[in-house]
């Protein structure tokens, strides 16, 4: 009777632990950015801080581009190691350029993934913009 209970109980606990750890790290990335919209809207990118958290089990290459009026003013290739995070803060030059175009459209875009589309951009992407 002891084994009848012991085996399934151990299996449930072990399976639960491995499943939770696996799901916790595989399959998604997280972006967090405090005050982003207000920063972009005001044209003050100095407060913009973007945290990219790679929760996957492999290194991911993120392409981060910042566009003003659809014109790319900055482009970075960042390799974020598996299960780690990376904080992006715009450079002085970009902050200054953005402030001169405060009323215009700003886009901060992130791209990542292994496959590229026909234009050469990585397929998965995420954008922040001051547009409604």
């Amino acid at each position: 009777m002891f084994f009848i209970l012991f085996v399934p109980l151990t299996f449930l606990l072990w399976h639960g632990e491995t499943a939770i750890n696996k799901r916790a790290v595989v399959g998604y990335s997280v972006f967090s950015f405090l005050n982003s919209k207000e920063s972009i809207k005001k044209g003050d990118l100095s407060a913009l801080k973007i945290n990219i958290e790679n929760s996957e089990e492999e290194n991911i290459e993120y392409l981060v581009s910042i566009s003003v009026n659809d014109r790319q003013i900055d482009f970075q290739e960042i390799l974020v190691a598996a299960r780690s995070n990376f904080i992006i803060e715009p450079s002085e030059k970009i902050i200054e350029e953005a402030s001169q175009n405060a009323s215009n459209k700003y886009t901060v875009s992130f791209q990542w993934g292994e496959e590229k589309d026909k234009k050469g951009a990585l397929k998965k992407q995420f954008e922040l913009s001051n547009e409604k």
Partner: protein
Amino acid sequence: MIILLLFKFYIAIALTLFIPGHFFIKTLFKEQKRYFSIVEWVLLSFGFSLLITNFLVIAMNFLSIKLTVSSLLIVFILFSAIFWFLSRKNQKLGEISKVSTSGFGGFSKKQLFLFLGILALSCIIRTFYLADGIVPQTTDLGHHIYWSKTISETGQLPSYGMPDFIIGEHIIFAVVQMLSGFSYISSMSVSVLFLINVFSLLAISVCAYSLVAGFATKKIARNSALFTLLIAGTFYATSSPQAKFIAGGVIGNTIGNLFIPITIYLFILAIRKKDSRMATLFYLCLAGLGFTHHLSTFIFLYVFLGFLVIFFVFAVSVYRFNLSILWKNVFPYFKVFFSKWNLVTLLIIVCFILFVHTPSYLNKTAVNTAVGAPSKSTRVGLPFGAITLSVGAWKLFYAILGALVLSIVASKKLLKKNSRTTILQIASISLTFSWFLTIFLMSTKPALLKVDIISSRIVSYITFPLAIFSAFFIAFVFQRLFKKAPPMIAQILFFVVIGTGMISGFADISDSVRKNDPAEEREVMQTYRASRYLNSIAKEEENVLKDHIYLKGDTWMKLFFMRDYKYPLSRSFLRRYADPTKKRETCTRDMIAIPHSEIGKECFKETGVKYIVLKDGFETAQFERSENFSKIYTSPNVVIYQKNNAK
């Protein structure tokens, strides 16, 4: 790491769910091998350990002893050591009881092998069902585990401030978590519930034996116990109140379904043995039920009242309306339950309820909401078809046949006047009938019994008595058939009955099997990740609103904040806001649906909500477009918006 966790988990389980009860029962019944079978012994050790764990923790809290790993270890080890010493001391005195065995252990080798095989199959079915979707995410479990975590973090028992929760639902998880070190975001809670559910199967099997042995032969009783285990354990094993309740975290019902059969078993055993110690255990078990689940206690009390009525009617007719002879025959049993020691036990229980810890539902308002004319459409009773769907057509059909056979047996037995044994027979038959009939009436015609509780919740309790009735029918009829009919015909009929049961019962399992969806589990983990992030940035005065409709595992979010049971606020299912019986708050709905309206703005001001957690693409458009909200967090499925101008 996992090996160490598992090791600590088993130590915790042994310390809280086996050892204290083992030594307690051993002290009470010095000659345990003669009194109980190994199955009964293990069952009682488990049930009473759970009960003792609850009472020890409540007592520690009352004495202002902080609940920590070391204090729990000291108290549990001390308790077990004291009772170990007492049990040895009693044995040394040579006070060996000469009582006979309870009878349950009289299985042949073949029957014992079958018993263990059915138990193993029951465990396998449940394990596979629970393994799919093992990441904790169900609503009820999330609510309950918040309170267990509160106990672990504060080191004291919580004050709920509402009658929905009872302390016995949360103590065991808190203690096992503290002693084992498992995270609450793990399969620990489901595993403990699984263990409780498996022991409830043993309890119903032992209870079936105890009841049937009261009015039929021991052979029929043993076969009834085996068939009860087969029907309750393997047929419809994943529906309510079985594996579905474990996965869903319906803690009160699951523990209630352990204590109700044990209580009934002890009651019948106290009558059979005329043993006041059994009556003591009966009272303690009933108290344990009372500290664990209000609905289970309520249902047991109704069943017991029904038993008293049926018993009185049967007994009066058996004794030809001669009340003095009836009393003369009942009095020895009355003395068993109201012996000096049992009166002391009852007094201790009453004092414990009054002065140490009063269950949260014991107040006039809570009682009034459960007793009276049905107040909602969900409480007016279920049609027969709904009951059939709920419990399984095969089980219901054979249970009704079982009830008919028992009626015939009862009418034959009860017409004979036979002093001592008749009281046991009357009690066993009355209690078996009452268990079924009372719950059946409570589910179908609650107005008759003045019951104002959701009928679909009550009906889940009928599963166990139905299993006993159908098992009794099979055991009784086939014992005669195998004796009187040609063996071939009896065998074919037997396989037809069990085969149709397997088809019906296993089809139900295959219908309800959960699909293992890694994408869904990933969504749950994203909700947890978002909660952890939000907890790191949200200040004490800043409120959070999350969406219960689309987010997966959202009720578990409160475990990451641990600020209040109602933190974060939750947008519920829309039908909940249209309640004709009372006015409901609508801010949680309006802040997501119409955040820019005057009502929405007023709600934000009133509630102090600064952050909104939604599933990406589900009612997020108004926040994406708004100048008043910024997206501050995103993962593939979960997004968080911040209200820019919140103060």
